């Protein structure tokens, strides 16, 4: 199964475009979408989820034109939007039954399916309370449960870890890994570490354009040997910023540890080379492509 996107453009108006001539092929496994705000991640996901029509371009799922026939993908789609809501007067069972109806899931097994999903996201004990009384994390978990109701083959998660506490985030990553074997999973996040731990491939976007798409090691290779750390006084940081791309700073007593990508190939005196990470590569790509 593969999702083939060719020359996709989404123009909201004369001055604002969401995507520009965007092409990508997505295979089974987890694709992590990384990009700053306004990069077009949500636009891309909405188009794949069939709730937004592209201005130009094509989108095929196994030779099926999704733009022309959106119902083809809707049957096998699980979608968790970034800022979804719930009907506060319904309880978890009623809400999931409602979503199941939307997805066309029914029959005698529906109740058991909902039970298992609620058990999986640990909401069984709260399943009969109105969702309006849930915490942010609980709502996010009910969102994850609804996405899995129809055994989806294409799963889209837009910023799924927002609202989850650290433990919930770890569990969520585990859940995604379990699902990745027979699904296309597209996952966007601002948090590079979330993508780093679960994505098989990473697509980095900016201003509606695909900057790079590759397996994680290949993307990290772009900055291999260019990442350094140095301990300096606060006065020296400005000087480093003019010569190199500063990735991060952290205070250590009266000094500051600066992590940077060298632009000149000549690191600072006393700087030591460190292993590059996905975050380094991401910042390198997004800050050097205007």
């Amino acid at each position, binding site marked *: 199964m593969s999702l083939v996107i060719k020359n996709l453009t989404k123009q909201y108006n004369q001055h604002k475009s969401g995507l520009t001539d965007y092409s990508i092929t997505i295979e089974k496994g987890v694709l992590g979408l990384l990009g700053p705000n306004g990069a077009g991640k949500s636009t891309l996901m909405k188009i794949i989820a069939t709730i937004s029509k592209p201005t130009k371009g094509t989108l095929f799922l196994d030779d099926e034109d999704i733009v022309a026939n959106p119902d083809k993908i809707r049957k096998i789609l699980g979608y968790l939007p970034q800022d979804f809501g719930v009907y506060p007067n319904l309880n978890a069972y009623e809400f999931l039954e409602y979503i199941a109806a939307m997805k066309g899931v029914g029959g005698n097994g529906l109740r058991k399916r909902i039970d298992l999903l609620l*058990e999986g996201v640990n909401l069984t004990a709260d399943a009969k309370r109105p969702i309006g009384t849930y915490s942010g994390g609980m709502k996010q978990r009910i969102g994850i449960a609804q996405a899995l109701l129809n055994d989806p083959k294409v799963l889209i998660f837009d910023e799924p870890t927002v609202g989850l506490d650290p433990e919930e985030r770890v569990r969520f990553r585990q*859940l995604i890994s379990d699902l990745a074997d027979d699904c296309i999973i597209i996952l966007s996040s601002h948090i590079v570490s979330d993508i780093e731990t679960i994505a098989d491939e990473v697509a980095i976007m900016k201003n509606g354009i695909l900057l790079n798409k590759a397996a994680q090691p290949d993307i990290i290779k772009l900055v291999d040997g260019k990442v350094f750390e140095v301990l300096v006084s606060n006065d020296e940081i400005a000087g480093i910023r003019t010569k190199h791309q500063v990735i991060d700073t952290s205070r250590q007593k009266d000094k500051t540890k600066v992590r940077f990508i060298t632009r000149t190939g000549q690191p600072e005196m006393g700087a030591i080379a460190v292993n590059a990470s996905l975050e380094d590569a991401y910042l390198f790509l997004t800050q050097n492509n205007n």
Partner: protein
Amino acid sequence: MRYIYSIIKADYLQRTRSYAFLITLAITFYAAYSFVPPPTASYTTLNVVGFKGVYNSAWVGYVSGMMTAIMLSLYGFFLVNGGIKKDIDTEVGLIIATTPITNFGYLLSKMLSNLLVLLTIAGCTFVVSIIMFFVRTSGSPFIISNFIIPYLLFVVPAMIFISSLAVVSEVFLGRKSILQYIAFFFFFGALMANVNGQKNETLAVIIDPYGVRTMTTSIKNQVNTQYHQHIEGVNLGFTFGGKRGFRIFEWNGITITSLFLTSRLLWLMISLGLVYLSSSFFHRFDFKQAVSKRKKVIANEQKPATPAFAATGINRALMPPLVTDYGIFPFIKTELLLLVRKGSKWLWLIIGAASLSMLFAPVAISHLYILPVLWFLQVTRLSELATKEETYRLHYFTYASYKPLQRMLPAQILAGVILCIVLAFPLVSRYIIAGNGYAIFNIISGAICIVLLAVCIGIISKGKKLFEIIFFLLTYALTQAIPVADYLGAIPHDSHIIYIAVILGLNVFLAVISFVVRGYQSRHL
């Protein structure tokens, strides 16, 4: 003062930058045009039985000003009501609560932004009234003061009062919109009846926020003086009826007395006083309900160390086989559930009692008064039918679902129609016993009509407000037996066939617009 100005500005911009406001403006332009009917029209807006005023600048200016004051009061309340609720829903209120602004300052800013919105609309009718003067008259001198005085002395005080009332009702009746609507409905009716029925002329001028009594008395005196008559009835508002013979009189506006000016000042003081008084009762976004709800959540979150996800994750192997069901019955069930759960339980008791009362009340009264009011009591439910997905941000799910247009939207419409018909059932059952198929048909097509109107306006305006205003006006007009407002066959019509055809045609039109626009929306998020 800086805070107040900023709140007024933000609030005003927020309200006026919406489709609902644009549509309201369009309706206002049409209404302002209709305030000055052509001589051949089958209706009047100021009715003096047997007489007709000459169209001069006083007539056009005053009638337009008075109609604006009354009509805009009627639907303006619905238009501006909800400013505080918006701050609660968006949680902007929590930020405001932490600023140094006083309760009175905040409520005053809400009142003033309400006023600005209403005056924007009144400004439009003012311009249209001048245009209408040149359209409808020929040779009559244009006297600008005849346009300014009624807007200044009728419209502005009335709008200040309504702006204040909208704030006060929100403070005392909280987020219970339906209670505010009902209270205003009866308050407005009682006020108008009292103003028109008051025998003491001085008292009538004082208790009249609109100045309507001053104007009708002035016209009455003019006719009585000119024709040595003793007419009593001068009615403002749309009066429908055939053209009859009439005598012409010329009226040149009201005489501004100190009593009249004092009454204008009095209503201004009352309006500000009401806001000031209500500021002592203002919650400042600190709700007992919210606290108890929060406590519940916290209590739940503090349960000892239950992991967020089960350690085993979601075992898909244990899942029963996937069975597909693309029917719409599960949607109808959920939509009905949402309709029933909305609103308080005790209000359902009142609704139930009103519905059952149609078993015993005279059939004509049940059909013309009880049923329209009973359906209007569902206004917050119906207005939410096709807007709640966006309100609760569930539209991502619904639009991405399988055939949303063929399944979701029909389910919402059917649920609304079922609710209306169930409420009308006591009356329908009486018509069944009487064998009156025409009346039954009209009630069912009326239920479909009002639900489709709710859905259509909700989809187009992406909000509830516009439908709530229109439904209120429709209900008010229907209870005044105005034929054009009769969507449920409560008033006898000349031709059954034509009436049925009009309602059915309207239903088809509303359905087509709803499906086409929703179809577009579902692919263009």
